[in-house]
């Protein structure tokens, strides 16, 4: 297997990259970590005439943490974000979820922003961005920049809102409010495989340590991440004795999975329920440790 021939562009600055993308339009493709794109090229499932390699743009290799969010630049690798202590403290869900992305070797090269733009329905980070209500920063020559909310970014399987000629320069993951815990749970046949189903959960506790609000986002059970509000099932209940199974039933009813060679739709729906219950319970426990840590 060899990739089809392409013209290689190595811009030295973001404006040069945007110029190259504007010039090549539909025929151009951004090369970031390449851990999803290069397999597609090797198997000749994709054949872009031009590749614009952004790995040389040091200005996009950033993980910036402030009092509102973690902002991840376009060539920051999974491994770097996973290991960043400030990012893990601000948005623990990042480290919780990134650990389940493929294997460490893939995480050494693959990028957070690249995974989001790739929009694989089985990928972890799109659900993380949706669950946190994050956003993507896109740039293009001439028109300048635009920001797209996570809810509007994932359009379908392998389809995001990035237009030809545009470059996703950063992803913004907002800090969850104080008193909120998070968890990531997924099931795959072997560690590192694509999840048959995966669930991120955010649970906020009130001062009496009862569930104030709870939400989840699920992967591999729909064309894009499926957000589910679990507050109706869990609200007002004690942090350590809520009706987690009821939260699971809400999630199972919200998803519409399909059969494929890896699992039946019925099994995926079952997993959606079981894993949502586990994730919500773990997020509530995590919320307690966050509150104790802050006190």
């Amino acid at each position, binding site marked *: 297997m060899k990739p089809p021939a392409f013209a290689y562009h190595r811009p030295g600055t973001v404006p040069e990259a945007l110029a190259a993308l504007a010039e090549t339009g539909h025929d151009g493709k951004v090369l970031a970590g*390449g851990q999803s794109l*290069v397999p597609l090229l090797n198997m000749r499932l994709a054949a872009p005439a031009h590749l614009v390699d952004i790995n040389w743009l040091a200005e996009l290799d950033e993980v910036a943490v402030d009092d509102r969010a973690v902002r991840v630049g376009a060539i920051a690798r999974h491994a770097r974000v996973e290991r960043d202590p400030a990012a893990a403290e601000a948005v623990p869900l990042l480290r919780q979820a990134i650990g389940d992305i493929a294997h*460490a070797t893939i995480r050494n*090269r693959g990028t957070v922003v690249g995974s989001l733009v790739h929009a694989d329905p089985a990928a972890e980070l799109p659900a993380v961005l949706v669950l946190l209500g994050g956003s993507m920063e896109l740039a293009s020559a001439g028109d300048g920049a635009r920001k797209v909310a996570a809810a509007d970014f994932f359009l379908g399987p392998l389809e995001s809102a990035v237009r030809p000629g545009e470059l996703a320069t950063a992803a913004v993951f907002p800090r969850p409010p104080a008193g909120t815990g998070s968890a990531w749970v997924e099931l795959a046949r072997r560690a590192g495989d694509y999840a048959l189903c995966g669930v991120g959960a955010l649970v906020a506790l009130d001062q009496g340590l009862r569930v104030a609000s709870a939400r989840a986002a699920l992967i591999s059970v729909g064309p894009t991440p499926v957000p589910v509000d679990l507050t109706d099932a869990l609200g007002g209940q004690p942090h350590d004795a809520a009706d987690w199974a009821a939260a699971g039933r809400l999630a199972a009813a919200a998803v519409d999975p399909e059969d494929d060679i890896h699992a039946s739709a019925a099994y995926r729906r079952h997993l959606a329920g079981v894993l949502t219950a586990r994730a919500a319970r773990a997020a509530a426990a995590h919320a307690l440790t966050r509150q104790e840590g802050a006190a």
Partner: protein
Amino acid sequence: MTEVLHETRLVVNGVPHTARVPARRLLADCLRHDLGLTGTHVGCEHGVCGACTVLVDGRPMRSCLLFAVGVDGAEITTVEGCRSPDGGLGPVQQAFQDCHGLQCGFCTPGFVTTITAWLAEHPDPTEEQARQAIGGNLCRCTGYQNIVASVLRAAELLKEGERP
């Protein structure tokens, strides 16, 4: 159509090389065909099997998922670079021999590079950690038991090597 060739510099196992390659030349193929370093094995060619794993600036990466031009200037360590300074087997290679961690040997270069980098950060692994560390590499011969043992043995050998 004649493809444009790109001059690409790589420092492989400490030795500087220059290759003129088309942009689509995968790093794995550049190492094997252009530089003649056939220790790196090409298995699945889509990032699943781990046989082609090399260290890029010290970090394990799939050389079948990198273009040589894309890592222009990088320091690459292949299985040939995992030997000991005197030219004999390096500690991870020696451990594979001690523990019968290979049969056909096709997957071994990827294991050796991956484990070499991992032990540098995890010098005292448990069996469970050793098992996780090799989760991204496939072997169809051994059933992995002896490879897990090899990871633990390599950690021992590295420690022995540190003693004065």
